């Protein structure tokens, strides 16, 4: 079981981390959430079907983040996101600006729009997986994601102008 658990860490920690970072915008809190989630995973390891581990981790991560956000005051500042580039300085600057603008726009989205964009457009999960993680129906996922993308487009268009 120990080896299986280590494999679960390898397979899922980056996506869970990325989700927590986007939702919470705070490294320390994201670390706390991941610790809580993986402790819970360890405690429930016997009862969890293998095929449901990934959606379980993402769902519990999201729920823990949303719980923390509910308890927290809204913050407008967004931490800087480190990006690696192999482009010229001018392109880097432009791309970094777009990246920051986009991240800020994603952070400004309401739930569940924000989670849907992260899970679909950044992490490339299927609609079915996203429905399981967010506990929404498939049509709801599609509708909300379309709205989220439209909002993002509008926010970015303002930023690009």
């Amino acid at each position, binding site marked *: 079981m*120990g080896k299986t*658990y*280590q494999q679960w*860490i390898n397979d899922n*920690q*980056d*996506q*869970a*981390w*990325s989700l927590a*970072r986007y939702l919470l915008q705070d*490294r320390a809190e994201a*670390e706390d959430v*991941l*610790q809580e989630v*993986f*402790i819970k995973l*360890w*405690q429930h390891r016997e009862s969890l079907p293998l095929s449901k581990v990934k959606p379980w981790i993402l769902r519990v991560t999201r729920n823990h983040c949303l719980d923390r956000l509910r308890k927290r005051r809204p913050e407008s500042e967004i931490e800087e*996101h*480190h*990006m*690696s580039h192999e482009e010229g300085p001018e392109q880097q600057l432009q*791309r970094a600006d*777009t*990246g920051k603008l*986009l*991240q800020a726009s994603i952070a400004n989205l309401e739930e569940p729009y924000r989670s849907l*964009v992260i899970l*679909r*457009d*950044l*992490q490339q999960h299927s609609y079915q997986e996203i429905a399981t993680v967010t506990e929404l129906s498939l049509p709801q996922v*599609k509708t909300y*994601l*379309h709205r989220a*993308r*439209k909002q*993002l*487009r509008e926010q*970015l*268009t303002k930023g*690009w102008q």
Partner: protein
Amino acid sequence: MNDNTVDIANFEECLNALIDGELGELEHQSLLDAAADSPQLGTRLAQALKLQQALQAIPMEKAPAKLTRNLRKIPTQHRAPRSPWLLQPRWAIAAGLLALLFATTLYLPGNSQTELEVAQGRQDLALALAYLDNANRSTNSRVRSTLNDHMLMPVTEHTSRALQRQL
């Protein structure tokens, strides 16, 4: 997408299908035609593609190495709590038995013992019994926690009483 023609009403739906990679070749062409005919739709298509590119360019941040190390420690940190090794019953039993063995050798017939040696022997035996009693209690509580109080009088208690009677 059943209808291949794209108009303003279903343009948004087509844009999303395009971003999800679910747009067929004909629908894709139809979308491009509609965008070419209408500057408004053309702008929306350009914005959607720009957004898609920007989203794809955002790298996924990896979990920090320190966090990974902490996550890997979870199985060892979240085991059932154990008492310190020195206080574990097997050590107490071993120590008790050793002391008992030592004390018993003093009582073996044929040994010429002074009163002082006998007193020392009694003291050692009492110490050994105390060790055994401790071990007994510890084992008892473990057995109780495992078997839910079904076994309250382990054999060792009876044995220690019998030994005490001999003294």
